[in-house]
């Protein structure tokens, strides 16, 4: 089993099975460019630095990839297909502890950076699910978003959206 070492922004090393990394478009490109798949190359001696991902986030990403090992990798960006996706129970549980926290968002940003389409889709879906059925003030409350609107602006927005109340 070929192991490839990923290095997080805080210098933590994560040896990861080569097969798992096929889910990440970014890492896959790096592996190809660095010829790490060549038999002559000592993959273990050539760690892949990921300066945009912190250690704890990378650990979560690897945990997710391990669970989804062998899943078909999503190709391209088809928004219409996303509409039908339901977040599976395991993933829901995976995101839940970090929900409403910066960890979940960091995980989403990392999924985008590492180009792991399935993780990105599910993560965005999980975030959007937290918004469903909530009013603007409730969203502000849950996500700690400061209210930037003046009372006049709020009144104007309220009138504009009366139909959805």
């Amino acid at each position: 089993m070929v192991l490839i070492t990923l290095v997080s922004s805080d210098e933590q090393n994560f040896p990861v099975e080569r097969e798992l990394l096929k889910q990440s478009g970014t890492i896959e490109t790096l592996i190809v460019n660095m010829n790490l798949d060549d038999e002559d190359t000592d993959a273990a001696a050539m760690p892949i630095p990921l300066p945009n991902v912190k250690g704890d986030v990378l650990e979560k990403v690897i945990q997710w990839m391990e669970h989804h090992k062998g899943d078909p990798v999503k190709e391209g960006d088809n928004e219409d297909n996303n509409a039908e996706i339901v977040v599976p129970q395991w993933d829901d549980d995976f995101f839940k502890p970090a929900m409403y926290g910066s960890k979940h968002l960091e995980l989403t940003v990392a999924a985008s950076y590492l180009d792991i389409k399935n993780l990105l889709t599910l993560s965005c879906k999980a975030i959007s699910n937290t918004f469903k059925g909530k009013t603007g003030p409730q969203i502000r409350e849950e996500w700690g978003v400061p209210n930037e609107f003046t009372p006049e602006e709020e009144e104007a927005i309220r009138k504009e959206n009366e139909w959805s109340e």
Partner: protein
Amino acid sequence: MQWPDINQIPTFPNDLMFLIFNDLSTEERIPLGTTCKRLATLVKGGVSGKNIGDSHTENRALSISWNFAKKGGRVRSRLALRADTPPPRSVCTRGYPQTHHRNWSHASSKEDPAPLQIFRLTDSYKYVTFDISEHIVDEFIRSMMYLPSVDYDWEGDEEDGELCYIFDKSSRTILFASNNDNDESIARVTIAKIDERNNLRIHNDNPTLPNDLMFLIFNELPTVDRIQLGTSCKRFRKIDFELGSKHFERIDISLIDFYQQLSVVGKTGSMEYAIHGNITGHAYPSRHNLSRFRSARTNVLNIACDQSTRSSYNIRDSDFDFIAKICEQIRFASAFIKTNFCESNTIEHLISIIKRFSMKHTQVVIKSSAPQSTSFLYSHLLKQLPKINRFRFDFFTISKWNEHRGIGISESAFHHIVSQTNHAEFDLVQTTAEGIQRVFEMVRNWDGYKFVVFNTDWTTVIEFIALHLVNGTYAFDDTRVTDRSTRTVLIKSDVVHSKFIANVVICKVDADYKIPPLPNDLISIAFSSSRSTFRIRSADFDFLGKLVEQITFKSLMIKANCCDSTSIEQLTSLIKSCKMEKVSFYLSDNENTSHLCSHLLLQLPKLDKFRFQFHTLPSGQANREEEGISESAFLHIVSNTNAARLDKVNYTADGIQRAFEMVKQ
């Protein structure tokens, strides 16, 4: 307990920092400006001479520290009152900062101790971080730490720096303080709310997600939830507008000059998302208004353009321009355009709207209630249409078929539409035998599905048939011309009540020479009569019944201007042999025959949707009071359909009650 990163202070928004600085005197702002570059920049702003409280006591400093969270208002005045209350206890024995053991004014009320009010800062801001004189914090903490609703703890030592927190369980607010690395006399304080999951709600991480990820998240949400999200903060609002792509079940655009009304209404569920205005200028193509329907998707787009001859008001160019810009942004499955425009300039405007449609895979139905004499204008309109999957054109007025010469869609428009669509239906077409031949060739040479149905001069169709009879090119029987090599057929049928017009279907048939099922098809049957010599024949209905039986369809639309008992009986037998989901009747007569129509409705099978409209023609002598469907027919329809729309019903209160109960169940 999750500790927030003290370095997050630079992420605190500038506008809030300005508010804080605004309430500090110049003297107090200078030390703050030394803490970091960002604060130094802020200090260079305006200077406030505000001084609150007693300047000779430490209470003054406390007043200031509270006020800079929120300028003016209740917080400040309450704090001023509390400042003189006597101290209940002194000295904290351990914990940060341990250096100042002074008395501190305690609460005057057990329920609402004065120091707790500092937590009210979070009523305005979820997260506040500021530097303040260490001894003020010390006093504050000591006054709070023994309150029953407060948890208190600390960690660290004097060398490495100390960190302490107090947590008010009732308001779920935490205050934590640490030493400032540069100046020991200054403490850095953060106050924040903690949610029920024990996460600090100080993170503004969500708004800092890059826009492309926010677009992904917004894209996952239904329209209603997206609008709510858009009201939570300015950035989300902007993203919501920029992304557009809202999904509606239906969008109705109406431009009705008689009422001087212009509106765009998106409907999703039971809700409406609307731009209402009137023609005098309330609805205009502002960036905001246009953004509301940007990249919107809808199943049905309805456009109603009505120009009343009674109105002196002319629809303005800018109104058309507004509608065109809205339509340009909308993706739809079906568009229904109803208009009575009969002037070349208004039709030109309609063309400008239609040309902007993105409708390669859509269905477009145009219904005009303008006189058919304006058909040359509509021919011009049709020639501008781009590729469409399915197309239908109707003149709503059907009483002039006996005077059809010179009216109907032009041959060039007819050919253009047939070449641009897979499925085309026309009311009346002016064409020649060569013109029909060309259409037949188009269908014959087309690899996929192509279906054309139209009405035209009966003699022209006979001429076409004769042409092939002579040449022997294709097989021929009474009503069909068939090209066996490609299984292309032309089926001719008479139009009931008009001996001058023939109905023609040109399409490819299946192996059994039957017309293949038409996807989502609408069958339209029209009867027109002058009520003179020609009476409806059973043979006509038999033929029609046999033709309809061959076709699978979902919707049936019947338009008729004669509703005598024989016609109604024949129509009833025809309908009973059909299987469809939706039926629409548009009936009219010189006399009030709605009682006969009631009989017809009683025979209807189960349907998903039903529509009935009956009106007595102006020349008739009918008593309009008696016009309307009988109550039994009404209840039959209500019990057998999921959605029913009836024009006028002769009902009783009991009948309404029964209908209500049916819907309720």
